[in-house]
């Protein structure tokens, strides 16, 4: 799935350069449920951005299913994100003017499908996350946990190979957070998807199969989680 070889990312902040990632070597396989942990400023989000093709490494090589991201232009990266990667955000990032099922349909619409043609599929996805009875509700009418479950359904819409979640439980109460993590766990185990979560919640990290620990931009630990 993913292969990172000596990947670094440097940002220019004012007059100085900040090394957000330094010399990261990493392989992520299909069906893995991976947690990226580390203190604030350790480079977790930067790594997630690179995995999500939202940014390019300053040095090193990053490939996804054998495709080197450096060879992709903006269109290529967008197409790959649309079809291969599902995103879940801490801030949910649902579109306020769309109903729940329409939010789930967004990736399909971006892929050229008609809204009516994907409605059934969207309702099924909402059923999977336990929200089919909220299908016609707008985000303003949903709780935080419900919004995040809609976001999960959206992320699964085009059956991507990868799900990337940035602090998915950061804005949720513990019960909702457990539900969300459970859904992500299921997404990884039932369908063989690779799920990568950035979190600083140890309970969330404990659910993962593998934990990657970052500190000061370096991968300091890569360990299987004992159960």
């Amino acid at each position: 799935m993913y292969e990172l070889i000596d990947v670094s990312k440097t940002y220019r902040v004012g007059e100085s350069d900040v090394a957000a990632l330094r010399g990261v070597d990493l392989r992520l396989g299909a069906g893995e449920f991976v947690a990226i942990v580390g203190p604030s400023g350790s480079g977790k989000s930067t790594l997630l951005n690179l995995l999500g093709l939202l940014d390019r490494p300053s040095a090193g090589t990053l490939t996804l299913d054998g495709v080197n991201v450096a060879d992709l232009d903006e269109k290529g990266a967008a197409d790959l994100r649309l079809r291969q990667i599902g995103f879940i955000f801490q801030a949910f990032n649902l579109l306020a003017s769309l109903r729940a099922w329409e939010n789930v349909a967004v990736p399909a619409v971006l892929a050229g499908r008609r809204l009516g043609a994907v409605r059934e599929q969207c309702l099924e996805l909402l059923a999977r996350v336990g929200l089919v009875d909220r299908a016609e509700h707008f985000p303003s009418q949903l709780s935080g946990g419900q919004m995040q479950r809609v976001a999960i359904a959206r992320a699964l819409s085009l059956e991507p190979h990868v799900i990337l979640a940035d602090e998915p439980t950061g804005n949720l109460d513990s019960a909702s957070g457990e539900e969300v993590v459970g859904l992500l766990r299921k997404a990884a185990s039932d369908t063989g998807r690779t799920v990568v979560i950035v979190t600083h919640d140890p309970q969330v990290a404990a659910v993962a199969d593998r934990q990657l620990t970052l500190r000061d931009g370096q991968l300091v630990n890569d360990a299987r989680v004992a159960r």
Partner: protein
Amino acid sequence: MSTGFRLFHLRGLRLRPWRAVVMVLVVSTCVSLIVATTTAFASLGRSAHDFARAVAGDAPLSVVGVSDAGLPTSLVQRVAGVPGVDFAVPVITVRVPVGDSEAVLIGVDASAVDLSSALEEEVDQVDVATLPANGAVFGEALATELGLATNETVAVSTPRGSQATVVVSALSRGAASAQLNGGRFIIVSLPFAQQALQRPESVDAVYIGVTGGRSVPEVTADLEQVVGAQALVTTPAHVAEQADQATRLTRDTSLVIAVLALLAGVFLIYTMCSATVAQRRRELLTLQVLGARRRRVTRGFVAEIGLVALVGAVSGIASGMVTGRMMIDMLPPVILSAVDVDVAYRPDPWVVGAAGLVGVLAAVAAALFAVRVDMNVPLAQAIRGTEEDSVATAGRRPVLAVAAAALLLVGAGASWAAGSRSSALILLAGAAIAALAAAPGLLARASAVVTSRLGGTGELAGHSATRHARRTWSIIMTIAVATAVSVAIQGSMSNLLTAGNRSVASLGDTALFVQPVVAEGLPTDPVFDDQTVQGLAAIDGVRQAVPGQLMPLSLDERSFMVQGVNEGTNTPAFRNASGQAQESVVSGSAAIVSRKASLALDVAAGDSVTLPSPTGPHTLRVADVVDYPTLNDGQIVISLANLQQWYARPGASFVEILTDEGAAVAQVAARARDLAASRTSATVYVEPGQEVLDALRSSIAQASLLAQTSQWMIVLVAALGVFNVMMMTVLARRRELGVLRAIGGRGSAIRRMILTEAAGYTLIGLVIGAGLGVLLHYGANDLVGASMALTVRFAPVPQSLASALLACLVVIAGALIPAWRASRLDPATVLAEE
């Protein structure tokens, strides 16, 4: 329409309808101004052109008189004898009062059947040669209005003050009838027309057909040899072109103002789009993160704005056409008199469509610029939802804005070096705006400094200003634009009025004007004979009765007004000249020309000017050049005696009455009215000099009316823009404001904070706008002065500052509702939200 566009863009419009409404209003206002201006003035010209075509048909040439005295009948045969002339049809056309109405009197002979026109069709149906001596063909519309039937009689008044009785020999119906002044015409035999108009030896025009293998230019050259200075060889559209000329100044000024309104509107749309992108940035970036290509997202946003603009353009076209129709009715008589036919509102669909298209394209361009500049942030931010609008990031200088500023600065320098100060100043103002566009952070910091001086809530407001630099910039520049427009328009119009009023002030020195038109009109018909003038002079209390005439004249294909004066006149074009020049004119050896005429004729004091006339060319020395506002190409002042002799125009078209000191002016006026009315069939008006002066000043002021209306429309639109952006600001800061309420901030404090923020923006916007406004005022003065050929001196006026302050108050009122909404936020509800 694609699913994605409906879902990601149109759905958002329904969620935030007021933003769309504001944008529709902005585009609608701009398009409406352009449509109203272009269609109203175009209708004047088109009405004149349509009538010319209905009379002359396809005739390629016409020979016309240089003045309203026409051309001698003796020329008609000589013109007809020129090789290549197929037909030469003499015609008289004059607007006359008939009953309680007005119509066009058309005098023709049997040769009119050679014309391929609506007139020819009418003449064909009724053999003009067999009409009774005073028989006439009446257009259906006129006959209906007057309630006339066949064989009934009606009195027709003539420009020379006489009356003629005509018999309704036939009523015209059908499409051809409607083409002739909308069916409001009277066709009589040419001899009868000449007799009734007391012009036995002249006609207005001869329409000429060309044949025999000769070209139009060849025939034209031969005709010019034949007519010399007695007449003008031109096309049948000449009269219509003169009408266009007479309205050109007002039309062009109005159009410039409409275009300025459009530019201001584009700027306001840009600021609204910029603020909208800032508000929706996370949503638009989320789409890109999910896999939408950037171009698709950009195009969708621009198409969304384009659709809103289309609605605005359509409503603007509709309201513009309604306004244009009303404008025709509101045009001053002095402009309508340049078009001697009924004016029908005839909007050109191409022009109307183009105006709408311009509005849409302008909005689309503004949206495209806003989205390309303001969406230029890393995608990674979408995940975190961080606000990429802080001072730090806003410190990046958009390359385009800097390049634009540099280019405009170079242009300003080049214009100044070339001697075009007005262009240089306007370009300099543009460069300043572009430079400010490159420095949103600078304005945000300045705003923070100002608001922090306004108390504790001011410090909080200052933080908000720096955190949302682009939004801050949008609001400040909106206020600056509104202020600059107010200062510039108020200042330049005020200076123009001062200059215009100064140039006509002497009219107030005459006690009474006796004339056949109302105070706002131009008396061009010589209805008062010498005996009438003598009678007026003999009235008790009258010190002097000074006859004068005004006469339109075509010279070098331009349209002038010739004024014939006698000693003692207070008419401004004469009184503004030096004493020596006045003496020369009265003695008949010189002329005074207005500054506009001197530019049109390329003559200065000391040069000569040659005036064509039915009696041949006459050359006079230019004794002086004076400031005098006119709508046509200028005023030429000669002695009354010269005018009467050269143009076969005995009598006077107005008489100035100068009274003895202590005379009872009202009694003199009553006696003068009775005496003059008894000696002419024309309606006589006796107007106090001050009223004539006020009417002329009012006409000048009307020219600025459109400018000032546009100014306040721009201010209103700016207020809507500020309202829109402040509302978005409050919505975007719901959580922050909710927190402030939760920790003890009262609603009144929140309201004060928002208003303090708005006050800070207003103060900075006022200062920037005032500075830009002064530059634009100076530049506009030069432009307006050049177009009116008046010396318009730059002078700051208190009204400018008052206007600017009022504009700011109106604009800041746009912040009241958002401030009120902010004060009403329920902290519990807000904090429970995302």
